[in-house]
């Protein structure tokens, strides 16, 4: 398993953001759904080794992130796109991605090719020399994805990656996710259930810090069949049904 968590919790002051998550994930694309404040971002930040859990255990890519040396091993093989992607406006697209390639300790000889490949994969080849301050929101999002995949990560964590992407880009992005999911574990936190339906092999639904559903998109769709749950699409109705059931 690339991701194995046991009773993971994370507390911010009095707020319990993640309240005991047990999750195992191997290669594939995992969708993480849930309403605002469900704890998705906190869970991803813990999986990205950005914040430590308050309690519980995590093993990522066979390593324990509590131990510095192992955490460093994990980070070399990790890709992460946070919800609020920061950037240095004066950097060009290539420089920004190269910066992260170097910070992920990629072999220096490979950096140039890997950066070019990552930039092409997100469709920004023609903007490679453009300063980040000149890019649109959607393009910046793609730069964020490029830096995440530059090291061909075995664990890719994406927090709202399709926000700001146009429909064509979202379609292309789903294809990219499916491709990456062949070898790597990709965990995508999103509010867009159609992304989950189109790209994910597994889906987990979080509410109030807990995982309240874990299965395939089809299984989630099935939960909505025959109910009066809100939603324009079958998957949305499944999502609403599970939430309603949990909260009742």
């Amino acid at each position, binding site marked *: 398993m690339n991701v194995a968590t046991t009773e993971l919790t994370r507390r911010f002051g009095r707020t319990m953001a993640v309240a005991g998550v047990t999750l195992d994930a191997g290669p594939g694309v995992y969708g993480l759904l849930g309403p605002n404040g469900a704890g998705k971002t906190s869970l991803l930040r813990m999986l990205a080794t*950005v914040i430590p859990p308050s309690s519980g255990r995590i093993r990522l890519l066979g390593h324990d992130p509590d131990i510095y040396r192992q955490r460093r091993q994990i980070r070399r093989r990790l890709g992460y796109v946070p919800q609020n992607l920061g950037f240095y406006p004066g950097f060009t697209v290539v*420089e920004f991605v190269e910066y*992260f390639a170097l910070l992920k300790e990629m072999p220096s000889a490979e950096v140039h090719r890997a950066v070019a490949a990552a930039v*092409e*994969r997100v469709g920004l080849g023609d903007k490679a020399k453009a300063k980040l301050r000149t890019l649109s929101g959607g393009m910046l999002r793609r730069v*964020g994805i490029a830096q995440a995949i530059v090291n061909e990560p075995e664990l890719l964590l994406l927090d709202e990656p399709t926000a700001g992407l146009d429909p064509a880009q979202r379609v292309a992005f789903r294809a990219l996710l499916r491709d990456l999911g062949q070898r790597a574990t990709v965990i995508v936190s999103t509010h867009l259930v159609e992304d989950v339906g189109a790209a994910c092999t597994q889906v987990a639904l979080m509410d109030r810090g807990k995982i309240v559903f874990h299965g395939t998109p089809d299984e989630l769709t099935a939960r909505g069949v025959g109910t009066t749950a809100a939603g324009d699409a079958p998957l949305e109705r499944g999502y609403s049904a599970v939430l309603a059931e949990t909260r009742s």
Partner: protein
Amino acid sequence: MTATPVTQVPTRPARARRVPLAAAGRLLRLELRRNVMLWMLPIVAALFWLITYRPAMAYPPLWNVRAMTMQTTALAIFVPTVVGVAAWLASREARHGMTDLLSGTSRPRWARQLATWAATTCWALVAYLGCVAVLYAVTARQGAWGGPLWWPAAVGAASLPAFSALGFAAGALRPSRFTTPLVAVAAFLALELTAQFIHGDHSPWQVSPLVAGPWENGADPGVATFYPYLPDLPIVQLIFLTGLTTALLGVLGLPAGSGGRRLRRSAAALTTAGLLAAITATTLAGTGRLDPRGMIAIPALHNPADNRPVPYTPVCSDTPIPICVHPAYSVHLPTVTAALEPVLSELAGLPDAPVRINQTAATYRQESGNGVSISRAGPAMSDTPPTLHILLPIQLARPVATDVLTAELWTNTARDILYNVIGGDRREKTEAQQAVAEAILKTSTLPPGTRTAAAAQRFAALSPAARHAWLTSHVAALRAGQITLAELP
């Protein structure tokens, strides 16, 4: 976006440790390209021109004056700039919301910060060394004697990494919008304050990189010409600055999250070693003593070889009594000659008059507080052949403009020369001696209407030939104090 990679990339990054230097070099190059210090270079260059270059060029081409002025004033420009830029760049991650993204990368935060600090420091050094190169090149082209003084430039250059580290540490540890302005102004204030606390030659505050010699003397044209530039204080300052840089960079590696346990231990060791070096240097600066040759000597570091005078061939004037100056001051020789020639014409050929006037080295003595007394090293007169040794006004620890120099040469140096010939060894001059001096110098310092003033006017009214003839026959008696006012022609 495409689902398949355009170029095959390695499926798993190999351990980067095999080529850490190449990766670090690339990281540094990236930081260099996008470093904000680059944008500050024109501002720094303009300030350097206004505050350092322009005043330095107003002084004669003396390496000592130009180098010592540069050390003090250039730092006042570079320090707040470098501190501000470093603090600003250090708070960059928080400002741009990059903290989470960067925390998830494997390279230790310390390494990332060091790359940014190094790039900032590199540009600051490039700017500083460029400014120094221009100043020194112009000074060399103006024909300054000897070679450039590198110690002041080295202290200035070593200050930049230290202050860059100071700003960086402040910005990284407290990434607030107020950190940059406050730390830039505070660094400037602290730098200026350190100089205010210097009282005497044994002050530990002399470790401040602003200090290029005895603080109250400032840029002293009298030092580092007859004797070498003493490296004692610069060495102490370099130790201090290296220690400060090391300690501050070490501090960056101390917080949790900077790196692994081993790395943080190394950071703690660096901090400790840096602090020890800085404390040692400060203690050493406190043992400083004003060397008779005009610079601060540190006994523990002093090399006796630096006490030996630097050999030189004096440059002499074509006057009745030749005036010979150190070649470093040859630029002043025409002024000195023009100012003293009338007196020398009167004295040439008189019995026991010097056949040559030599500029001599000054000797320095610390007085209470920051006071320094400067006097002539050795006796005024030496025999075979009779030679008079004088100090030029420019050797009195203050660079002076040409018109001021002429006035001082006439009122002080010419009078000294004259009294050496007509006044003898007595401190109190007789009325006759005063009248003769007043007449030859054509000054009016005597109270008008007095007998002495009248005698001076009478003697001044004589033709030069008559005056010279009278002096030739009476100078011995005049020197011995045996001539009265009435006996003056």
